[in-house]
């Protein structure tokens, strides 16, 4: 109940600060331009127009959603402490974990709204422009939106953990940018380099699976690009799809764990903090 009161206030604030508007417009604008520019190589009468959109949109999501998630969350604890609003809030009959959970629900609702609306517009535009879309493609597209929100949740929770641990807002922002670079860019490059050097001699496919599970953005990529047969042929990941043993359930569970563990650690760190 307390968490919901706080979530409501966070949503209210995000609407006022135009966070909701800005992130929705950003996602809608990018997904629309990808839909229409991205479909030019396959032609506008492409039978599987939506599948192509899923491939390009999920690649975009991997860059953008973590960034948005970290942007709204890195400031949540340390920023409120610096501004002094946390002092007053915690003098009220509310537990610290409720404050954190409330913020999480609020921020995730904002992110989910922006993603559903921003990406939904792309699908709606395709339908309106006369593309034929079958139910398989629609299922894959819905799964993409759902897993994008889950990826957002991972990074919102991670941002809280950073925010609960560091001393000032500047540090929180710096650490979050570093995390983003690491998980979105560096990790994959390093993994690729490692696999290229190894040439499949000593690293088993189980080890590759484990390394992919250790990065939430890779989990997301695997889920969307290999989870649906019709999509994976476009994604150029059909080969990886055959070799991996990770099922969609495992991948979703991994994303969930990647949310719950940082969130739990953030709650613990926050509860130990003095202000």
């Amino acid at each position, binding site marked *: 109940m307390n968490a919901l*009161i706080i979530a409501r206030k966070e949503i209210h604030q995000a609407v006022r600060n135009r966070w909701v508007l800005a992130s929705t417009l950003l996602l809608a604008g990018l997904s629309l331009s990808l839909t229409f520019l991205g479909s030019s190589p396959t032609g506008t009468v492409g039978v599987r127009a939506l599948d192509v959109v899923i491939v390009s949109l999920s690649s975009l999501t991997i860059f953008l959603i973590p960034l948005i998630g970290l942007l709204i969350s890195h400031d949540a604890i340390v920023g409120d402490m610096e501004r002094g609003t946390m002092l007053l809030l915690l003098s009220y009959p509310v537990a610290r974990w409720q404050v954190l959970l409330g913020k999480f629900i609020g921020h995730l609702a904002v992110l989910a709204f922006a993603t559903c609306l921003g990406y939904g517009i792309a699908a709606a535009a395709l339908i309106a422009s006369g593309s034929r879309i079958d139910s398989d493609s629609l299922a894959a597209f819905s799964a993409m939106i759902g897993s994008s929100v889950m990826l957002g949740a991972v990074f919102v929770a991670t941002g809280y953990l950073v925010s609960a641990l560091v001393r000032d807002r500047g540090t929180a922002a710096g650490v979050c940018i570093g995390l983003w670079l690491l998980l979105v860019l560096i990790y994959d490059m390093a993994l690729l380099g490692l696999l290229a050097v190894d040439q499949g001699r000593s690293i088993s496919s189980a080890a590759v699976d484990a390394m992919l599970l250790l990065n939430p953005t890779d989990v997301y990529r695997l889920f969307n690009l290999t989870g649906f047969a019709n999509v994976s042929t476009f994604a150029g990941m059909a080969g990886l799809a055959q070799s991996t043993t990770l099922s969609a359930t495992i991948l979703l569970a991994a994303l969930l764990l990647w949310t719950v563990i940082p969130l739990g650690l953030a709650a613990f760190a926050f509860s130990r903090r003095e202000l």
Partner: protein
Amino acid sequence: MTSTVRVTDVTKVYGRATAVRGASFELSQGELVALIGHNGAGKTTLMKLMLGLIRPTRGSVEVLGDNPAAGEFAGRRQLGYLPENVSFDAALTGRETQAFYARLKREPVAKALELLEIVGLGAAARQRIGTYSKGMRQRLGLAQALIGHPKVLLLDEPTTGLDPELRQTFYEVIERLAAAGATVFMSSHALTELEERAGRVIIMNHGIKVADGSIERLRNIARLPTKIRLKVAGLAPTELPSWLPSGAACRRLNGHIVEIDAAPEQKIQLLHSATAAGTSVEDLDVIPPTLDELYAHFLRQAERTP
């Protein structure tokens, strides 16, 4: 008199600095207690300890029967707090903020919004807090602290940034609350204001409680002289009244006023001789030691006895 706040031998250490050192006191229902001390004397730390925002290094704190730091926050529903330099989320309006805090306390929102009128926020309540002046934020801070008739009010520098008229209203409101049985614990630098209102004063110095009691009691302990000011007719600028006992500490002010420092036991006798027949005293003022002087006295005394 039931005690609402009990602080027992509390010490709070931050790294190397000791913010509070072995402080003990009890606050009772209906008391208006002033906490005074210079910056860094441990006033804010004491309040944070009572709120459970920080844990004491040693000793124990009990507020309305709860240990505030143990995560038992039922007692906080009956607690009002106004932090020093209160701040709010700038994007929301005063009304929205007040409604949010009322919901957290499970108090009716409509009643909480009425408080905005009492503190004189009125029309500004519908504007964003980002546009508020310091005084307006302070009013909102007071309004939220008063939500739900708190049994314990902790006010950290509540009157800074308030105009004189609102100060009056503020003291009326808290005096009414204290009369209805609430404990009001406030820190302030405005000692002259507190003098008439606070039933009890606690003086802190470097984290140590150096004095605690009603102003009359502190005057008795401090034994500071009472000032007697006399307007005497026909007295040459350097002359002193002949009836003054020799050796009495006195001085001349603006040419025609004689100021005498009277020790507590000399006071009545001096007044007798001043008003006795034959003296040319035209007017007389008796000024007991002010809170300012008492405060300075207790701090000096604390410095001398480490």
